[in-house]
């Protein structure tokens, strides 16, 4: 049973990490806890569902469409909501609260458009059969989510560390003003980050929607709450931290169900989280945060 639970923990942790990657990226560069990320995540799932249902396109095209549409949505949120607040030098709390409003508006709009009932991807979009390896059950989709979350983390880290673009982004994360004085196109990079992070959120929405088989307008909210915990645990704004935080939360949840009882799941998992934060108040990889201060 323990082996299967560890497999379960790995796939659940990767689900959380996948969601948290885009979430943490926005914070890392823009310094905004974007609470509309859960709604963007949901839009991604619905967008892919619509093109797959109506045009019968394969999954990769659905994923691409969700990525692009959510990216544009993220861009629009940045342009219409975050940019005016930046221009007015609004304190940190204001953009966060503004994104709560954006999230509510998007949720309500989707409920108006598609109704409150549960939807799912057509059967056969991805194989639902389990691969059985030595008595362990794992679906192809779970394997895909695990691999993709690691690959995305690796790619993001590489991009941030090794490319000119990444260096510029890290410069902005330290000080947008200094970066601007150095001739970095700060606004442009803010747009790019918003686009990429929202696109990643959309991708996560499609994959997790496929995984849970239940799409509904508020599907992003519980994920958002877990996501906040994950990125705080990992250290706000850190890509590695989002990955590890996700895996940690997944492991804590699964093991507390296995050995303490499912009634105590959140108590144990979040108790652990609290302990970690007591020992490392800035999270597992809280360096970015440190530099900001």
């Amino acid at each position, binding site marked *: *049973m323990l082996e*299967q*639970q560890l497999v*379960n*923990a790995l*796939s*659940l942790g990767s*689900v959380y990490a996948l969601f948290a990657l885009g979430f943490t990226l926005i914070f890392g560069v823009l310094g905004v806890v974007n609470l509309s990320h859960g709604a963007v995540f949901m839009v991604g799932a619905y967008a892919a569902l619509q093109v797959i249902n109506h045009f019968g396109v394969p999954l990769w095209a659905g994923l691409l469409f969700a990525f692009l549409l959510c990216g544009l949505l993220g861009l629009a949120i940045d342009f219409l909501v975050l940019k005016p607040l930046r221009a007015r030098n609004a304190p940190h709390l204001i953009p966060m609260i503004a994104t709560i409003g954006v999230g509510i508006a998007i949720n309500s709009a989707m409920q108006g458009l598609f109704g409150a*009932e*549960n*939807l*799912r991807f057509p*059967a056969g979009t991805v194989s*639902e*059969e*389990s691969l*059985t390896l030595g008595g362990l*059950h794992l*679906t192809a989709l779970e394997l895909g989510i695990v691999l993709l979350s690691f690959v995305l983390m690796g790619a993001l880290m590489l991009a941030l560390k090794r490319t000119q673009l990444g260096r510029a982004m890290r410069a902005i994360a330290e000080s947008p003003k200094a970066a601007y004085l150095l001739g970095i196109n700060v606004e442009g990079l803010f747009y790019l980050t918003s686009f990429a992070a929202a696109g990643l959120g959309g991708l996560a929405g499609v994959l*997790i929607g496929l*995984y*849970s*088989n*239940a799409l*509904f307008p*508020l*599907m992003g*909210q*519980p*994920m958002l709450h877990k996501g906040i915990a994950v990125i705080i645990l990992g250290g706000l704004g850190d890509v590695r931290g989002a990955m590890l935080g996700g895996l940690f939360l997944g492991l804590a*949840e*699964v093991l507390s*169900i*296995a050995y303490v*009882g*499912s*009634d105590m*799941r*959140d108590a144990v998992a979040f108790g652990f989280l609290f302990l970690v934060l007591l020992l490392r108040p800035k999270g597992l990889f809280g360096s970015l945060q440190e530099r900001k201060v």
Partner: protein
Amino acid sequence: MNLSLFKTSLLAVAATLACSAQAAELKIGVAEALSGGAAQYGAAIRNGFQLAAEQINAAGGINGDKIQLVIEDEQGKKEEAINVFKKLLFQDKVLMVFGPTLSNSAQAADPIAQASKTVVFGTSNTADGITSIGDYVFRNSVTEADVLPETLKMAIRKGNIKKVAVLYGNDDVFTKSGYDNFKKALADLNLPVTTTETFAKGDVDFKAQLTKIKAGNPDAIVLSALIAEGAPIMVQARQLGLNIPFIGGNGMNSVKVFDLAKDKSDGLYVGSPWSIENQTETNRKFVVAYTSKFKMAPDQFAAQAYDALHIATQALKTVKLSGNLAADRTALRDALPAVKWTGATGAFQFRRASDKAGKPAGYDAQQAAIVSVTQSGRFVIQK
């Protein structure tokens, strides 16, 4: 121009007055949620009443009198239900009232009918305590406390089940109360429970709980969940190689399970007072008539409303109306408990409920649940 319009409207008023004076009409109030969150239920209920009234009137009415439904929208809100009840009882002077749609509203509005000694008849209120309000309160809606033991018994008999695991949503009033009812029924049946696991609304992964359940090696999983979590639970259980039956509460009793769980939806037992698959003569006729009138398939709520008006009609047939409203309302109340009726939902009779002090109060439904199991995308009735 204005004058002629005025004349026409005067004529119309006169015509209406003349009309209502001619035919003796039995005014029956219908207070349902026709707008707001519960509107999908309220609309089905209204349709059921309209279909029944149309058929009864077409067949000659009740001892020559026609039924006139006075339909009001109580919006699924307590305050509005109270307002609508007052209007129906004191202004429209109806013989009796059907409704309201939600148990919450019934708790608030039924005492008004009780105080004015008028029958209030719920067709969709399943919460405990509604019929303990008083002896003018009736319902033909079957509660989960009655349905779940029957679902369990049928599943145990058909599936040769010796021990079960329990899984339920512990952060939702409805799924929690379903769990409480299951727990009591399991204790009454002396069925061993290997483990009891919980989940929360919005969870996407249930494999940890299911892996634990699998380790206990039960013969079935008792599941109190809403469909949003229930369907993924069924899919993930099958993915873990857990191919045992599920025994579901009311939340799982929906054709949505086939949409959401697709080929992993087999082997789910659910109980319900009504099933569209039930091929009795009365039910078949009801389904056909409803579908042709409203261009959609009926649901459980429509069927229960349809039957409720027939039940009231049986009582009214035995009452000799005096024209004195208070006396007629009481006479109807006294005639109702004896009614036995076989309608779309099957054989029905009333069962006396008691109030909090244990004294006799209103009347609940006494009706066998129909237990079905899912098989290749449809509910198959078990006998």
